[in-house]
């Protein structure tokens, strides 16, 4: 396992990039811990796959270096980097048995057959494929084939990192729950460095110790799921994480108060100077209390989505999403209050600190 250093990496797919907009990946400069589980999360076109391909060696960055445990691997081919990869669609040998598919990467590297058998047995156990170990891969469902791919990604203990590129896309929801928790368990047990690319927030948040949120070719925040939820550092993170995402409302700031239309909202602290910048207040639907007092809202729709309800309301001419418990209902003359712990202030989309 290895620490991964991304040293001032930039990448453009065109020959002579001149402006920032020409770069699929703008400046990325980070160090990822040995044994960490990282998820790269963002919409399509955000640069997450470009970054993964630079780590795997499928792509050489236009600028910058990549190091595994301090060793420069920028010029090395994927097969020279000692990594395992799992892709979106299963890559298995149909004519081989499940067990032989798992054994393949080990035999390929000349591991003694007794060791191969022991390791394959262990992996079969981990991913629940013992029962079909001797069946040919041909004819198995996409679910099972992808399980084999995951197993093959995990079979070598000595890799620098395991890279996952949207590995659960073809998996049915119920199986996703099993495989996700299995991966998490395996990470806890074996401590591989794992990098997991996804556009699915649930997958990213539940899998990773650290989620790397990308937007427009840049990393906008690296944080724990809790940090991304409570303190999104950019309005995009607020929007992208959470379902529905964070409400972002235009406000005028006056010390420790924010003015939203006719309403004055007390902030947990005074915002630092934001001269001339566009200022907004971010509040997640989960931090809004609906009741008889507070700021008046008009309710446009109530969506019952099972274990909770989403209330679509208007406040001072702006849309506001509110999350309500399954058993709660909307009062006749609805008002809202914002839980101060859930309030964040943004200037030109970046979070500003609130003083005491």
């Amino acid at each position, binding site marked *: 396992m290895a620490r991964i250093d991304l040293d001032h990496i930039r990448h453009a797919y065109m020959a002579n990039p001149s402006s920032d907009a020409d770069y699929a990946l703008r400046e990325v400069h980070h160090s990822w811990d040995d044994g960490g589980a990282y998820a790269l999360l963002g919409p399509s076109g955000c640069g997450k796959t470009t970054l993964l391909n630079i780590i795997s060696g499928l792509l050489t960055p236009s600028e910058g270096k990549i190091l595994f445990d301090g060793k420069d691997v920028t010029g090395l081919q994927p097969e020279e980097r000692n990594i395992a990869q799992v892709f979106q669609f299963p890559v298995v040998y149909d004519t081989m048995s499940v067990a032989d598919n798992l054994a393949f990467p080990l035999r390929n590297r000349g591991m003694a057959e007794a060791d191969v058998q022991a390791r394959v047995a262990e992996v079969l156990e981990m991913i629940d494929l013992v029962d079909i170990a001797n069946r040919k891969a041909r004819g198995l469902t996409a679910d099972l084939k992808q399980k084999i791919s995951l197993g093959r990604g995990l079979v070598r203990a000595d890799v620098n990192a395991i890279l996952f590129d949207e590995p659960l896309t073809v998996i049915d929801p119920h199986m996703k*729950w099993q495989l996700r928790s299995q991966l998490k368990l395996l990470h806890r047990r074996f401590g591989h460095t794992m990098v997991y690319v996804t556009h699915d927030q649930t997958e990213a948040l539940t899998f990773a110790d650290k989620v790397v949120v990308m937007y427009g070719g840049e990393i906008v925040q690296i944080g724990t799921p809790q940090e991304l939820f409570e303190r999104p550092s950019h309005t995009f993170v607020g929007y992208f994480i959470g379902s529905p995402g964070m409400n972002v409302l235009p406000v005028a700031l006056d010390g420790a108060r924010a003015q939203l239309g006719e309403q004055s909202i007390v902030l947990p602290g005074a915002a630092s100077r934001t001269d001339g910048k566009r200022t907004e207040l971010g509040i997640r639907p989960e931090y809004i209390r609906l009741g008889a007092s507070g700021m008046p809202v008009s309710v446009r729709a109530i969506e019952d*989505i*099972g274990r909770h309800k989403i209330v679509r309301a208007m406040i001072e001419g702006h849309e506001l999403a509110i999350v309500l418990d*399954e058993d709660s209902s909307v009062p006749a003359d609805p008002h809202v209050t914002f839980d101060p712990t859930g309030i964040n202030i943004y200037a030109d989309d970046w979070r500003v600190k609130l003083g005491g």
Partner: protein
Amino acid sequence: MQGVSSPAASTGSDLDGATDPHLGGKAWEGFFYMLELDKVSKVSNGEAHITDVSLRLDSGTLNVLLGPTLSGKTSLMRIMAGLDRPTRGRVLSDGQDVTGLAVQKRNVAMVYQQFINYPAMTVYENIASPLRISGADKATIEREVDRAAELLRLGPYLQRTPLNLSGGQQQRTALARAIVKKAGLVLLDEPLANLDYKLREELRAELPKIFSESGAIFVYATTEPSEALLLGGNTATLSEGRITQVGSTVEVFRNPVDMVTAQTFSDPPMNLLPMEKRQGKFVKQGVRDIPVPAALSHLADGPCTLGFRPHNLSLTAEAGTTPLSAEVRVTEITGSESYIHLIHEGRRWVMLVKGIHDIEAGTMLEMHLDTRYLLVFDRDGRTVRAQPAGA
């Protein structure tokens, strides 16, 4: 449900409708008032894909087909579209038998999981193609394409070709084409499965609005319970080629008729606990007795299975909760909530609690079950119906 299309169009293809001078601007509205599947089965190569499906879909409704891969969703849609002929049973459109009618003769639009566009045409021409085929005039084409492009935010890309677009933009192009077609029956087969999570969330909210304007019958296949709940409308749950329940989406979710439906409509999966009812209690060796809720007191004594959803387990005792314990396997944290994966007597359970709770694997965890939402299945897997108080 009121039909919106003119009766004159009810026998024609969209081409006839387009040239009918009496229909004016509404020339392309669908001719389906109601689509009915009557005891439909489909067998191919000796394998049953669809078994005895009867279903009635009204104009202007959103109907979700919910079930795992290979449960028969696509097979059913192909029969509705006229792409496949059922082995047994009939397909009726507004009471008329259309079982053998080819897809070209029906006013149907279909969108698949894989984006299908004409690669050599611009996005504009892709969206305009059904209108050109139906002989619409230039002004109509411009108006309808612009409207669909605006709804699906394709305005900036109209002059590009599909291969120069992202997956999401390509799928939005396919959806725009289905919108301008103004078909009476719109079939969407996991249309958002390959799209970004957030884009899916937005399109999911917009799609019902977009299509409800047209008065079409809207059928949407998905494997994801959360998607069905966000779409609302009606849901039919599928399992192994059979429909297990049909009803309003929330009703099917809250009151599944059997264990299979409950499991199909649970994400995270439903937790199950086999017990035995003995007078006023559910009992089992090693599990504390659970009082039988009053509404279920009519249940006969004997073996049964309790089902409860992950958010009905909590870490704190409250009124109406009953204690349980299970071993922690692993915890997943989503930022505001925690999924605690558990093992109870060899069965996997999931618990969903608010806040951050990172509990060490192997811990024997005490938890509390909210019995208000408890489902009880009899030995045949049927849900025991609650009897209203006082009955």
